[in-house]
């Protein structure tokens, strides 16, 4: 496979213009899907219960994108495609956008802005509390994502952004807990997340064990 060999031997660096186009493509994909969802939800073309379909698709999409951001740094280490890292923030922000729309559609279409009910559900129902905390944390990460904030925060930036692992954990708990039985789709997500996290677990384990 000479093609693969050549691909791996020489890093595929995108020119600034190519990178810009690549990012524009990602925006088009993520925004386009949202527009499609919104259109289908408003025109009753999202199955029997458009509200539940909208809540579920924004939620699972947020989780899909979150797992994708976690996959990027191990991938960038092994693939000769350094530009990948430059797309991580963009995808991370879409995690927040999708998660925010997930909550917004729950509050507006499911609970119909019944604020007393919204407050009691967020406080009294542990699976919603968990999801809500994850979203608040995601919001912090999004607010601190611009480069100048990052520079200002110095080492604290990395500390804060390490909470993405906590967010992933909370999101998975939230997903599993929302179901009536354990053996459902969320289990597959736990497995995929575990596989994605394996290189990091390995790294952390090595750092923690003292050398002889």
């Amino acid at each position, binding site marked *: 496979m000479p093609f693969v060999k050549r691909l791996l031997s020489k890093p595929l660096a995108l020119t600034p213009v190519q990178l810009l186009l690549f990012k524009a493509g990602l925006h088009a994909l993520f925004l386009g899907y949202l527009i499609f969802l919104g259109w289908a939800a408003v025109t009753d073309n999202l199955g*029997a219960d*458009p509200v539940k379909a909208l809540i579920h698709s924004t939620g699972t999409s947020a989780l899909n994108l979150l797992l994708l951001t976690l996959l990027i740094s191990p991938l960038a280490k092994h693939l000769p495609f350094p530009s990948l890292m430059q797309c991580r923030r963009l995808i991370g922000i879409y995690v927040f956008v999708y998660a925010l729309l997930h909550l917004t559609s729950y509050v507006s279409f499911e609970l119909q802005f*019944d604020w007393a009910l919204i407050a009691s559900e967020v406080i009294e129902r542990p699976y919603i509390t968990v999801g809500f905390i994850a979203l608040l944390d995601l919001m912090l990460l999004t607010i601190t994502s611009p480069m100048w904030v990052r520079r200002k925060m110095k080492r604290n930036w990395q500390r804060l952004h390490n909470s993405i692992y906590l967010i992933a954990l909370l999101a998975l708990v939230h997903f599993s807990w929302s179901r009536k039985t354990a053996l459902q789709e969320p289990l597959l997500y736990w497995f995929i997340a575990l596989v994605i996290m394996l290189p990091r677990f390995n790294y952390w384990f090595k750092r923690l064990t003292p050398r002889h």
Partner: protein
Amino acid sequence: MKRFSPSQTFTDNQVTDEKVFQDRRRVLKSLGFVGAGTILSQSAHGFGWFDSEPEFEAKPLSFTPSEKFTTDEAKTPYAKVTSYNNFYEFGTGKDDPAERAKSFKTDPWTLRIDGLVKNPITLDYDAIMKQFAFEERIYRMRCVEAWSMVIPWVGFELNKLIQLASPLGSAKYVAFETLHDPKQMPGQRNPFIGGGIDYPYVEGLRLDEANHPLTLMATGVYGKTLPPQNGAPIRLVVPWKYGFKSIKSVVRITLTERQPPTTWNRLASNEYGFYANVNPKVAHPRWSQASERRITDGGVFNQQRIATRMFNGYDEVAPLYANMDLARYY
């Protein structure tokens, strides 16, 4: 004398919708964003078990519209009633049953009534469909997940069936069982499809609840035979209880002295009681039951969230629970 009326006529939008729904669902899935669970469902389809089997076709039924048991509330369209189902035997997703149960065999069928009865009976498909005078009743259906529908069922009162078997004086409860056929029901073969609950699905009622005139054995919906995803060929409908009590595709009804085990109660007794009466005051541990979203026509900007009524608005059943603490017996 029985009075027969022509079966319900469908408006164009009621009949065409379902296929359109499924097509759009496919578009969503092909975009790959719906969720990793689709990987599971794809592989499940990959075995091609049903591929060559004929698909279900609803047949018209003869019935009398009930004057007493009806409602003016807007009905949930046929396409929605038949594409949004909880029937874990065919998968835990709401649209899984409609997709996977297309070739489910409902004829031949055997329904047995046994246990503490003088006269145990076995009914075959024809007996079920011909022995009873069918009525159409429009009932509200409140799911424990806080959504509801308004559905025109066709069927007969369960008490007629129980009478045929002449219960013994010692009978206090009625146990129900869904078909157990892992060959036809992928959820029973594979716990990852069936959500990991124990099969066969079982349900139960107190004998007085079972004999209440509201309690229906349904054989049809919207004037035609039930589609498999709705519990063909015969299912229970208990409109003042959460939907999971209304067991589908029943093969056995057993009269017992003791309270029979019920599937969801066995799985999580703190969340699902034996009685499972619709009760806005008793919350599910993970969500409020005070209100519900009615599934009718319309997109997300055209939704109604309505207050949930005690016994789902069927106040006539209240005497069944006189002197009972319904917060304890939820």
